[in-house]
C-alpha cells in the first residue's frame, strides 16, 4: 500500500495498461506521420521532399507491422484476439482496431509501395535466378507488364491510393486518440480534443522519424544530404508542431479555465507524479526547445551545423512525443476515479510487459526497415533505373 497516496478504489491500485500500451499510440503515430510526409510529395507535389518519399513509405510499413505486437503481448488471452474480426462488438471503439489496421496496412501501404516499386520488382524478377527469382516473381504477381501505358496506370492508381491514404492515416491515428478520448469515466482522457491532438502529434513524430532516418542513411551511405529537402521537411515539421502545440495549449487552457470536479486532482498529479514526464520532458525539452531550434535553424548558415540543429531537435521531439503518450496512458491511471488519491506505476524490466520487451519492440521496426531497404532500395542504385518521380 506504500504505492498509494490518499484513497484509491481497491481494484484501482494496480495499473491496467502498461508501457506496452504507451508504445501502441507511439508506433501508430510514427506510421501515420511518415505516411503524411510521403503524401506531401505524391499528392501535394512538394518536390523538395522527394528523396524521402520511398523511405517514408518503407518506414511506415516497418512500424505498421510492429504496431499490433504490443497489444497482442498485453492481452490476457492473445489467442482470442482474432475474435475481434469474427464477432466485433459494434458499440465498442476498440472493436474497430483490426479493421482500421488492415485497411491501412493492406489497402493503403502495401498497395502504394507495390505500385511504386513494381517496375523494379519486375526488373529484379527477370534478372534474378533461383529462389530470388521465385520470390520477386511472386512479389510482381507474375505480371511483367512494364509498358509505358501500364506504368502510367500504376502512377495514377498510386496517386489515388495516396489520396485515399491521407484520410486513412488520419483515421488510423485519430481513431487511436478516440479510444482514449471516449472513455467518459476518465477525465484525463475524456476530451474530443484527444483524436486531434493525437493526430497532429503523430504527424510531428512521423516526420521527425523520417527526417532522422534520412540523415542517418545518407551518413551511412556516405552521400551528401540534400539540404533543400531537409530544410523543407524541417519547415513542415515546424508548422505541424505549432498546430500540435496550439491544440495542446487549447486543451490545457480549457481544463484550467473550466476547472471541473477532477481539476484539482489532475493538477496535483501534473505538479507531482507527472512533473518530470509532462512539464520537463514533454513540454519543455520535447516541445518548446525543438520549436525554438526549428524556428531559428534558418539563421544557421553552415549546413553541417544546421543538420546538427535538426538532429538535436528531432531527437528531443521524439522524446517529447513518447513522453506525451506516456503521460496520456500512464498518467490516466495514476489517479483514482474517486479523485481522492494516487497510485504508482512500477516499470519492471524482464517481464512480459516490461522495459526489456518494450525496447525490443522499439528496435524491431528498424530491423524490419533494414530488411525492407535491402529488398526494396529507397534510392536509385547504380544498377537499378532511376525512380519515376
Amino acid at each position: 500500500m506504500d504505492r498509494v497516496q490518499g484513497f484509491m478504489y481497491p481494484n484501482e491500485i494496480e495499473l491496467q495498461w502498461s508501457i506496452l500500451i504507451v508504445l501502441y499510440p507511439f508506433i501508430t503515430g510514427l506510421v501515420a506521420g511518415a505516411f503524411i510526409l510521403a503524401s506531401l510529395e505524391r499528392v501535394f507535389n512538394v518536390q523538395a521532399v522527394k528523396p524521402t518519399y520511398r523511405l517514408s513509405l518503407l518506414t511506415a510499413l516497418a512500424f505498421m507491422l510492429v504496431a499490433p505486437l504490443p497489444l497482442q503481448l498485453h492481452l490476457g488471452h492473445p489467442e482470442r484476439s482474432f475474435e475481434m474480426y469474427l464477432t466485433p462488438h459494434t458499440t465498442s471503439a476498440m472493436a474497430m482496431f483490426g479493421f482500421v489496421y488492415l485497411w491501412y496496412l493492406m489497402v493503403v501501404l502495401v498497395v502504394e509501395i507495390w505500385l511504386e516499386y513494381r517496375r523494379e520488382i519486375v526488373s529484379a524478377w527477370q534478372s534474378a535466378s533461383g529462389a530470388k527469382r521465385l520470390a520477386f516473381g511472386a512479389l510482381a504477381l507474375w505480371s511483367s507488364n512494364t509498358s509505358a501505358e501500364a506504368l502510367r496506370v500504376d502512377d495514377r492508381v498510386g496517386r489515388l491510393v495516396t489520396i485515399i491514404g491521407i484520410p486513412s492515416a488520419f483515421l488510423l491515428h485519430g481513431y487511436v486518440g478516440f479510444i482514449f478520448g471516449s472513455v467518459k469515466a476518465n477525465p484525463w482522457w475524456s476530451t474530443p480534443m484527444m483524436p486531434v491532438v493525437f493526430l497532429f502529434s503523430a504527424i510531428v513524430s512521423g516526420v521527425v522519424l523520417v527526417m532522422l532516418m534520412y540523415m542517418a542513411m545518407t551518413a551511412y551511405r556516405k552521400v551528401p544530404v540534400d539540404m533543400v529537402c531537409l530544410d523543407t521537411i524541417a519547415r513542415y515539421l515546424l508548422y505541424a508542431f505549432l498546430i500540435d502545440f496550439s491544440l495542446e495549449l487549447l486543451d490545457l487552457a480549457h481544463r484550467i479555465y473550466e476547472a471541473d470536479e477532477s481539476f484539482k486532482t489532475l493538477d496535483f498529479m501534473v505538479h507531482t507524479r507527472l512533473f518530470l514526464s509532462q512539464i520537463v520532458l514533454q513540454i519543455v525539452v520535447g516541445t518548446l526547445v525543438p520549436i525554438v531550434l526549428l524556428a531559428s535553424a534558418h539563421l544557421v548558415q553552415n549546413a553541417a551545423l544546421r543538420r546538427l540543429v535538426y538532429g538535436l531537435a528531432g531527437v528531443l521531439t521524439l522524446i517529447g512525443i513518447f513522453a506525451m503518450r506516456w503521460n496520456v496512458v500512464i498518467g490516466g491511471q495514476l489517479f483514482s476515479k474517486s479523485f481522492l488519491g494516487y497510485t504508482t506505476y512500477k516499470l519492471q524490466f524482464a517481464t512480459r510487459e516490461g522495459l526489456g520487451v518494450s525496447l525490443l519492440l522499439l528496435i524491431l521496426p528498424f530491423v524490419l526497415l533494414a530488411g525492407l531497404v535491402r529488398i526494396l532500395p529507397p534510392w536509385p542504385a547504380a544498377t537499378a533505373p532511376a525512380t519515376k518521380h
Partner: protein
Amino acid sequence: MPVPDRRAFLLQTGKLLVLTASAAAAWDYVAAGQPENAPGYDATAHWWAMIIDVEQCIGCGRCVQACKAENGVSTEPYYFRTWVERYEIDPSDPDHPRVESPNGGYDGFPENTRAGVKTFFVPKLCNHCADSPCVQVCPVGATFQTPDGVVLVDKEYCLGCRYCIQACPYGCRFIDPETHTADKCTLCYHRITKGLQTACVEVCPTGARYLGDLKNPADPIHEFLRTHMVQVLKPQMATHPKTFYNALDGVVR
C-alpha cells in the same frame, strides 16, 4: 398484364414471415447474450436492483468475506467484487474526506478515534448500470447485460484487453489473476436465478443490503424507493446504475 398468382403470393409472404420471425428470435438471442440455463427461471420476468442502506452498515466486512468465499475471488489484495469504504468527514473541511478501505474492508476496520468527525461506511459493488460503459466498450461482446439486468462477463470469450476496467467509473472491475479475464460482481447470478439471495445480502447482520426485483410489483423494493431519499453513484455519468443508496452523503464518489 399477368395476374399475380394469389397462391404463390401467400406462399412467398408466409415464408418471409417465418424467416423474419426466426431471424428476430435469433437476433434476440445474440443481443441478449446467454443467460444461465436455469430451469424454470424466466430471465425476462425480472429486473434486479440492489439497495444499500448506508445508515445500517457497520463496516464488519462480512459481505466482503462472503463474496470472496462464495465466488472464489482471489484473497490477494486488490481484487474485489464488493468492498466497504469508511468515510471520515471533518465538518470544517467537507471537501477533503479521509477515506480508507483496508483490504477492501475484508477484516473490518480499526476503531475510529478521531473526535468531531462524521463517519460512515459505504459498501460498494458493481452498479449493474442499465447503460453500462463496460458493456459498450467490450470489443468482442464478452461483457453483456442479461435480460434481467445483470452485467456479466463471458470468461470463455474475454480477451483480457482491460478496456472495460478503464471504462467503469466506479472501479468495480479487475483482471482475475487466474483466468486473466475481466471479473466483477455477478450479483451472485448462480444464486438469484435459483431464487436465493446474493451472498453479501445473505450474511449482512444489519440488513444494510437488499436485493430487489423491480419487475415484481409485490417486491418491497418499491415501497422502499417510494419512502426513502435514494441516490446513485456518479449520476452525472448517465450510466443509470441499479444500485441505489439510502442516506448517501454527497461527498461519496
